[in-house]
């Protein structure tokens, strides 16, 4: 057993941290307040070549694994950029996985190099008003019309849709009622987010406000057959392939956020004096922070194990789910405590922990809720009856 990062991994970690440090908390606060996409940051990451970290070399990437991707996103988040920074690049780093595995050569050749270069923004369209965690219940329908499909429906929460040229879109090509299995009849497309047929409206939300999340009203969106990923009716399976990596990356982002929050809390605890001594001298403050450190460290280990398994080609669902669960909780708890440590100032934007707190809360809900993780572990790992 070896807990050491490889030389490459250490270098990645260090270089990303250096790059991310060029964008300070002030930058992120302003982007968040102005609801403005962090283009400068995005450009910097792209021009340093990081967007292609996991993309195969033949498409201009570096072909690294999920471990490296998780280190990258963790550092970006831990820099204080949090979820604004991570979500700006998240999909470019690993979101194209279904395309890489199941897309046509043509599709890959046309798109992947552009994603690596940073000039193609993409978003991921799964969730619908009537289908959250219960994905197979989506109703956005792609109807065959000659060699095209015509799509109608509604999506919700689609992050970065405003900035995106293309969307990875999950649809139904057979209705739920008409499908032999509930996971059948779903078809995935990677296609232009044509504004003539898709009305995009941002959702006002609690945090991570530099990255929009949007409602999509899709009205006769015409998609050529070439934009279909893999086979018709197999979309759910393609999405499933990407779920474990997704969980690990979210875990890494939550972990980074927890580290950022803890760093600020410790600094404030040491600096702020009340009753003639630093507030960090109180066990009531120091212990919760020490406890968060222990929880973040433990969560980190579970994440490292999960990404290692994935990169070895070994089963990792249990570990990926566990890592998501533990990192999201540890990250949120650290952010909550950092806020408390700051007292009234925690509530002020200028100390940044309020922003971390709002973002950390998201990770207990999306992309998969803590409850669904427990459902997975209970049913598939412990072998207990499905509860829903």
């Amino acid at each position, binding site marked *: 057993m070896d807990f050491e990062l490889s030389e490459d991994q250490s270098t990645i970690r260090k270089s990303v941290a250096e790059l991310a440090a060029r964008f300070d908390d002030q930058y992120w606060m302003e982007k968040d307040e102005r609801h403005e996409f962090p283009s400068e940051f995005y450009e910097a990451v792209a021009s340093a070549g990081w967007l292609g970290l996991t993309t195969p070399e033949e498409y201009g990437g570096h072909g690294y694994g999920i471990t490296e991707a998780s280190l990258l996103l963790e550092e970006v988040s831990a820099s204080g950029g949090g979820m604004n920074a991570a979500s700006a690049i998240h999909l470019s780093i690993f979101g194209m996985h279904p395309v890489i595995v199941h897309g046509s050569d043509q599709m890959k050749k046309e798109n992947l190099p552009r994603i690596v270069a940073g000039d193609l923004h993409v978003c991921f369209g799964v969730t619908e008003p009537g289908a959250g965690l219960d994905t197979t219940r989506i109703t956005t329908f792609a109807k065959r019309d000659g060699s095209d499909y015509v799509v109608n429906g509604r999506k919700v929460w689609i992050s970065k849709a405003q900035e995106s040229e293309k969307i990875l879109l999950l649809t139904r090509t057979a209705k739920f009622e008409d499908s032999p299995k509930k996971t059948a009849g779903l078809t995935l497309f990677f296609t232009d987010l044509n504004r003539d047929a898709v009305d995009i409206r941002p959702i006002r939300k609690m945090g991570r406000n530099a990255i929009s999340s949007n409602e999509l009203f899709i009205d006769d969106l015409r998609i050529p057959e070439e934009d279909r990923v893999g086979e018709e009716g197999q979309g759910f399976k393609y999405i499933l392939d990407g779920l474990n990596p997704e969980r690990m990356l979210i875990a890494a982002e939550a972990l980074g956020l927890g580290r950022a929050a803890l760093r600020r809390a410790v600094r404030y605890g040491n600096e702020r004096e009340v009753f003639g001594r630093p507030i960090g001298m*109180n*066990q*009531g403050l120091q*212990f919760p922070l020490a406890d968060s450190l222990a929880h973040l460290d433990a969560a980190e280990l579970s994440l490292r194990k999960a990404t290692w398994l994935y990169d070895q080609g070994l089963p990792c669902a249990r570990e990926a789910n566990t890592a998501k669960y533990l990192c999201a909780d540890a990250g949120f708890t650290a952010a909550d405590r950092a806020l408390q440590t700051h007292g009234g100032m925690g509530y002020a934007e200028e100390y940044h922990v309020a922003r971390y707190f709002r973002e950390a809360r998201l990770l207990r809900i999306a992309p998969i809720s803590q409850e669904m993780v427990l459902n997975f572990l209970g049913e598939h790992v412990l072998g207990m009856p499905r509860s829903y």
Partner: protein
Amino acid sequence: MQWTLSEEQVAYQEALRGWLGATAPSAVLRSWLDAGDVETFQRSFAAAGWSGVGIPEELAGQGGGLVELALTCEELGRSAAPSAGWLATVLAVPALSGRKDLLAAALAGPGVALLLPAEQVPATARPLPLSSDGTLSGEIPRVLAGGSAARFVVPAVAPDGVLQLRLVDAGAQQVHLSARTLLDRSRSVTDVRLAAAPSEPLDVDASAVLAEASDRAALLVAADALGASERMLELAVEYSKQRHQFGVPIGSFQAVKHAAASMLVGIEAARSVTYYAAASVDAQGADSSMHAAATKAQVTADAARAADTALTMHGAIGYTWEHDLHLFYKRVKLDERLAGSPAAWNERLADALQLV
């Protein structure tokens, strides 16, 4: 709105606490527990006139209601007294409302016990089938104070499917008892097997009596846990001032202080909810069963947590039998389970809320 105990209630509480302190101090209590003697206490408790407080005069008691009973339970919990026989009797009293002839004797002890598993919400206990000749057969495990009761009140169903309560003489030769050992030695349960035991009917509304017994059990067990928690907090605070480490009393460490303060918060909340619910159940308000359920679920779960906190504050000494803490620790851990776990009572609340 005024939420205080009356002067008489306060005086009652002080008198009972004084009596328990004199009659059942730790050394005496331990000698009873070592000997497995539950009767000495029950007898002197009755002889001193405490056992009928909170029972209406027309039921051979001394008057008063659930608030007085809760006060009694709080004090019994606070001294970890072997009170199972008395509690079982109090829970069975409404079943005997038509049998005044038996009530006075029951309150004097040996008492009466509902024949159902101690860990169940009384209203959910499974009734025994009643034979056409009026006898009852079946085994009921873990009956509270089943070993010391003179009579059992048995939920039974007649062949016509109607729920009844029947009275069985515990001394009958068709009644077989086998005692169980509990970790909490201050209470006892016994497995009871009836082999065609003769029974006589009790002329009461069985469902109503069991529902009432459920509310009362919830409340009184919670009050017991409240008393035991108070005592654990006292012990923990006292110890934290006396025990020195790193040159200072451990109570000067903030984490220790905060642990004690959290216990106090729980206890104050428990007292508020317990006495409110006692008054509510006595008044038979519309939501009184919900109040009883919330009390049982909240107070006993919190007391079990408080026990762990108290143990932590004591360090290793709390882990020994030499120190009294373990008496109360075990007391509240049993209270958590007695008459239905917090989960069972929460389930009843959830049902009442008509969630899906």
